[in-house]
Structures are given as structure tokens and as C-alpha cells.
């Protein structure tokens, strides 16, 4: 009779060598896999934020730590307050709760009473400008990357949940909502409308009061739009994004006027000086474009060493760009040639720089963006807000005297850069 095959082939004793080897191999495999996971964990968790600082009344509002907003005196660079000051805090007289805000990607909006900002966990906060206590907090349906902006109708918030919200700045109540598609970039409020670019590749022009679309159809491309819409002159909006294209759009009709191809995605806020648009891309190129027709103004784009997420700024007739590796470049705006040696911060930088005039007021850094983020209420409010009165109007490039550039690093340091001397110094640490 034939024996049971199982018993024949595998008696219960002598598997020792193979098993021992197998177990050792298995243990080694497990250790390798777990080591890989452990090594990768730190990078997974990063949503640290990259908000550009804003200044009002000689106070700078800056994110040095993930999920925290700090007010700094621009005269002494001493910290005034940090929100949240503790793990538990209450908003608007409500119950105190333990909340840990996620990274802040959008620059804060300031109206003289409160500072408004969004966090990556989808919450919008209003905190008192004077002491940083929470006035109100609301939640959107998804993450928040876009900076909120202020207008005469209220606070506009573009969210990744696909909506643009119009909120009452006093209490955060929703006044209007428009389903635009996921918004990652700050909207632009101009005289004739609210411009919203979306990750679904659309540029909307909305009525600032009702949020109804103004154009018969939005401008539409297949790839997502990452840059905040930026106005050039009276008739063009510039926007760009993942498709490696920068577009000039007719403000009246929403039709494409021109497009320019870059080296990679456009993500940083373009800087506009007159009709010239300076744009950075993730290939590390800085390009100058005639905003009226899309012609490139330099012989060749300026090439940085690393990708550039942040937008360029103008200080002392010098175009300043900072790449993701923390290398600061001074560029001749007329020719696109580098000036002097680049400066190294030895820390990564994703946030756009801020330019301050010698008197501590904010120079033009985002062209028309700064106006709607800081001073919009000044034009609509019957009583002038204290901040609005102290808020500078965008200074023409080159007229600011000894302007300084302020750069926030991912390591939580604030650096001051002198564009004349090409020197950097750390002024604040987290």
C-alpha cells in the first residue's frame, strides 16, 4: 500500500535547517521593510505650510511653526503674541477645546480688528490683532491652502472642498457660497469682480456680492491652476499652474489672450511691475513676460539651482527670487542676468518673500494681491480702520529707499536680506 504522501515527504522532525534559514530571512526582511517605513514616516507627515508674512501697522504676521501664527514688531523684531498660545483655547467665548491647527499655507488677511487665516485641516480662524485671542473658528469641508482675502462684502475663502465662501468677518457666518472646484490659490478682488483659479483648471470671474459667475463660461484648461490670479493693467489677468503654462486672460470676456510655456509648473505668485510679469516655476526658471501680449522680454530665463515654489519680489530695482533650497538670487529686471553671488540660507524655503520699506511698511510684493489682503476694507469702510490707515499703498519699484527682504524658512527662521549689500541675517527664530 502506498503511504500517505504527506507523511512520507514531511516527517515532523528534520525541517530545522530550512526553517531556521527561512526564519532568519523573514526576520531580516521584516527589519528591512520596517526600517524603510520608519525612515519614510518623517516625510509623510509634512504639511508644515508656507505662508508669506503680511505686515500691518508695523506688525508682521508670520508662520514660524506649523499651525501657529506669530505677531512680530517690525521695529524690534520681538514677538508680540503667538496663536494658539496653548493646546487648549476657546473661540468667541465658547468652550475651551484642545485643537492643534495644521500647517498654514495662505498669507493672513488683516482688517484692523482681526487677522484671518486658514489651516490645512480646513479651519478658518479670526484672531484679535491686538492680542491673538481667537474670535471665531469655522470649518470647511476639506483642506485649506488658499489665502483668504478681504473685501467690502466680507471675507472670501477658497477651499479645497470645491467652494468659494463669502463669510461675515465679524462672526464667520456664511453669506454666500459658490461651487467653483477645488481652490488652492488666493482669489483676486478687483474693481469689476472676484477672480478665482481652481485645481480643476478653471478661472472664474464672480460677482463679489452674490458670487454669481460674470463671464458666460469660465476660462478652462485641462490641468490645475496653482497661481493666484494676478491683474496686469486694466484688461488682463495672469494665471498659471500644473500644465507648465502661464496664461493671459481677457478680464472682460474670459478669453485667452496669450500663453507662455515654462520649464515646469507655475506655483509662485507672479510679480507685476507695470505691464511686465515676472514668474517663477518649479524648474527653477525666472521669466519676464510682457503682460499685454505674452512676449518674453529676456533673451533667456534666469536659471536657479533648485525649483522655485515662491514668487519673486522687487526690492531696490532688483528682482529677488529664492529657490526651494534656500538660495537667494538678485536679478537685473531689465536683462534677467544675475547680480553678484547668490546667498545661501542653508535651509529650504517655500514661502514667498516679503519686502519692507525702510520705515517698516510693506512694499509692493504681490502687486495688487497685497491690497486686497490688507487694505480692502479701507476703501469700503465708512470709518477708516486703524490698520488700513497705517497700511502702505504699493510702492513703485525702486522708490522705497533701503528696502529689506524678509524670508521665512521651513526650519522656522525669519531672515533679513539686504538686496544692496547682498547680505543675510537671521532676525527671528521660532
Amino acid at each position, binding site marked *: 500500500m502506498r503511504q500517505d504522501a504527506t*507523511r512520507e515527504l514531511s*516527517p*515532523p522532525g*528534520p525541517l530545522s535547517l530550512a*526553517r531556521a534559514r527561512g526564519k532568519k530571512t523573514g526576520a531580516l526582511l521584516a527589519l528591512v521593510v520596517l526600517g524603510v517605513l520608519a525612515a519614510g*514616516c518623517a516625510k509623510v507627515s509634512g504639511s508644515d505650510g508656507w505662508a508669506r508674512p503680511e505686515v500691518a501697522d508695523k506688525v508682521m504676521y508670520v508662520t514660524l511653526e506649523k499651525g501657529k501664527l506669530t505677531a512680530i514688531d517690525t521695529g524690534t523684531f520681538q514677538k508680540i503674541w503667538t496663536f494658539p498660545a496653548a493646546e487648549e483655547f476657546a473661540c468667541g467665548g465658547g468652550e475651551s477645546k484642545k485643537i492643534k491647527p495644521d500647517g498654514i499655507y495662505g498669507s493672513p488677511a488683516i482688517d484692523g480688528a482681526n487677522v484671518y487665516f486658514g489651516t*490645512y485641516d480646513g479651519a478658518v480662524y479670526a484672531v484679535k490683532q491686538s492680542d491673538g485671542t481667537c474670535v471665531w473658528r469655522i470649518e470647511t469641508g476639506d483642506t485649506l491652502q488658499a489665502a483668504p482675502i478681504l473685501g467690502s462684502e466680507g471675507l472670501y475663502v477658497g477651499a479645497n472642498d470645491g467652494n468659494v465662501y463669502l463669510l461675515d468677518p465679524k462672526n464667520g457666518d456664511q453669506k454666500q457660497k459658490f461651487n467653483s472646484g477645488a481652490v488652492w490659490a488666493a482669489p483676486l478682488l478687483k474693481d469689476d469682480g472676484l477672480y478665482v483659479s481652481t485645481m480643476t483648471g478653471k478661472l472664474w470671474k464672480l460677482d463679489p456680492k452674490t458670487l454669481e459667475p460674470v463671464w458666460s463660461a469660465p476660462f478652462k484648461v485641462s490641468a490645475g491652476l496653482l497661481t493666484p490670479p494676478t491683474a496686469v493693467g486694466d484688461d488682463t489677468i495672469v494665471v498659471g499652474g500644473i500644465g507648465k503654462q502661464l496664461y493671459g486672460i481677457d478680464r472682460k470676456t474670459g478669453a485667452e489672450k496669450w500663453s507662455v510655456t515654462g520649464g*515646469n509648473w507655475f506655483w509662485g505668485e507672479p510679480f507685476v511691475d507695470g505691464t511686465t510679469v515676472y514668474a517663477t516655476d518649479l524648474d527653477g526658471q525666472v521669466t519676464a513676460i510682457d503682460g499685454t501680449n505674452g512676449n518674453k522680454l529676456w533673451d533667456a530665463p534666469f536659471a536657479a539651482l533648485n525649483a522655485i515654489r515662491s514668487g519673486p519680489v522687487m526690492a531696490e530695482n532688483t528682482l529677488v527670487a529664492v529657490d526651494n533650497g534656500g538660495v537667494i538670487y538678485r536679478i537685473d529686471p531689465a536683462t534677467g542676468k544675475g547680480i553678484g553671488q547668490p546667498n545661501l540660507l542653508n535651509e529650504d524655503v517655500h514661502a514667498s518673500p516679503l519686502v519692507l520699506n525702510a520705515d517698516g511698511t510693506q512694499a509692493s510684493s504681490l502687486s495688487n494681491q497685497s491690497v486686497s489682503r490688507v487694505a480692502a476694507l479701507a476703501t469700503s469702510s465708512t470709518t477708516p480702520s486703524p490698520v488700513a490707515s497705517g497700511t502702505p499703498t504699493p510702492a513703485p519699484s525702486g522708490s522705497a529707499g533701503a528696502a529689506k527682504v524678509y524670508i521665512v524658512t521651513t526650519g522656522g527662521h525669519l531672515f533679513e536680506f539686504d538686496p544692496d549689500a547682498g547680505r543675510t541675517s537671521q532676525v527671528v527664530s521660532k
Partner: protein
Amino acid sequence: MTAVPQPVKRRGLPLTGVIALTLISTILAMVIAGRNPWNEVFINPLINVLLMLNIITFGQFGLTIIFFTLLLRLATLPLTIRQLQSTKAMQAIQPRMAELQKKYKDPKRRQEEMMKLYKEAGFNPLGCFGPMFIQIIVFMGLYRALVYTVGGSPESLVGLSHRLYPLGILQDQIPLNQHFLWLSLGHPDQTFMVPLLVGASTYIQQRLAVTPGATEQQQQQQQMMTWMLPLMLMFFTLNLPSGVGVYWVVTNVFSLFASYWVYGKRMLSWKQLLPIPMGGPSPAPAPALRKPKSGSRSNGDIEGEVIDSDQPDDNEPDVPGRAGEARSQYGKRRGKRKKRR
């Protein structure tokens, strides 16, 4: 003269060699060109394939991960099966190895005889490492690819921009839809369901695939591993993007099917899942050996078989490898045994 088991076919070896040579030469070329071979050879292609598949799954990135995992496991199925068959072959020659260990006290001579035995059986002692190595590499690459694609933060997108091939349809997939079932694929699962599934599927997969240890010490080590690995993976999955957890669950389920394919139905014994020592009785020393039959190699008999096995041994555990070996060598033997009972 002693019999040896039927040699394992070595069909996979040349393929593995060709793949290894191609990889090594590509990596060298990358290094010479000053590019990061790890990114260029593994991460970037994986990312772009994931985005391609995302078009097929209508932008449902959760389905893309599942689809990709299945395709990947199917593509590496020959390697997986070869690995499992190597394990089976190793089990088959165990009796002879035990005999050699007893017979030769000189380690050098014993090693030589063992190598001879491997050669006769067509078993490559390092055969298991090739597939394992490839799986580790693929896993590491996929892990990094998922971190970039569903990393869950704008920072991860900055890194992704340099890794996409210049095709408009790939750029159009960004940002990926992170929502799948109850999960946000770029973030850890707050409901703990995915970590639990990862732990459970790893435990079951380990429990069913493992063979009992020969000594008490080995059994204890196995016990520890079958508990420790799932627990550690659960712990890590708590902090990883849930998309990685989805990959892990799917690949574990696929492994179960692959083991079933090789070992047969008997591996699916619920006894195997119980958290008790699997070996039944403590492992005995080498069993009594049957006298070798002349010409036994032709009918598959091997030296080291148990002499009397007409009466089934109730204490003998259900071992996947054994069952599979039985089926491969004796066809429908299981059915007959059942009938006898």
C-alpha cells in the same frame, strides 16, 4: 542508493539573471550620467504608471492602488511561485539532509554532501532570496511613490512635479482624488480599520504559510514572529498614508491566493489560525527511515520516508508545504486519504 525528489525546474534563473544584469547596467549608466538611479529606475516610473492607471480607474486613486497592486503581483507571480516551490523543494529534501547531518560529522564534508544534494534536487539555496529581494525593492519603490502621489500635503506635490513624464494626460491627473471609501489616502486612517486589516491579513498570511519549527526554540521564534510582525506593521500603518495600508492588505490577500495555488486546499485549515504552537507534538528526532527501493527515483520515492504510514498520524499537523508536495507528487492522494478515514 538513495532517492532524491524530482528536481525543481530552473526556468526562472535565466530570467532573473537577465533582469538583474539589465538593472545593474542601467543603474551604472545613471550613476555615470550623474542622476539618481533609485529615482530614475524605480520611483519615477512607478509614479507615472500609477497616474496612467488612474486614468483607467476614472480618477479613483484607491482603485488605482488596488489595480496596480494586483498587476504588480501578477507580473511577479512567476517569482512568487518559484519562491514557494523552492520552499517546498527544501522541505522535500529535509529527510536526506537530516541523514547527511547524522552521517557526516565533519562540517566541510557535510557541506559538500549537502551541496551535492541541492544539485541533485535542482534546489538553489539562494533561490528564495531573488524573489524576496525584488519584492523588497518593489515595495520600497511603491512606498515612496505613494508618499509622493498621495503624500497628503502641498509639499509632496512640489516633489512630484519633477517626477512626472512630459505628458499632458499625466499632468491632468493632479491633484489625485484622495478620497476612497472612508479613507483619505494621503493621511493615516482615523478609524483604525486599515491598520487592523493590515495586521489581520499579515497574521493570517504568516500563520497559514509558515511551517512548524523543528525544535521548541524555533517554534517560539515562529510564535514571536507571527505576532510581532503584524503588530509592528499595524503600528506603522497607524502613522502611514492609508493608501500604503490598502496596498499592504491587497498584497497580503494576493499572497494567500498564491500560497493556495502552490500548497493546495489543505493550507486553509482554521487550526492554523489559532494562536497556539502549530507543531502539535514536540518535534521528534529524525524519524525511522524506510529502506530505499531500487529505482525509486523514478516513482518519486525519497530516502528518509516514514516507514509505516498506513495509519495516519493524528498528531501530525496540517502543513501547507507537505500538503502541496503530496498533491504534486501523488495527484489526488488527498481524496483517497479522506476516503480511508
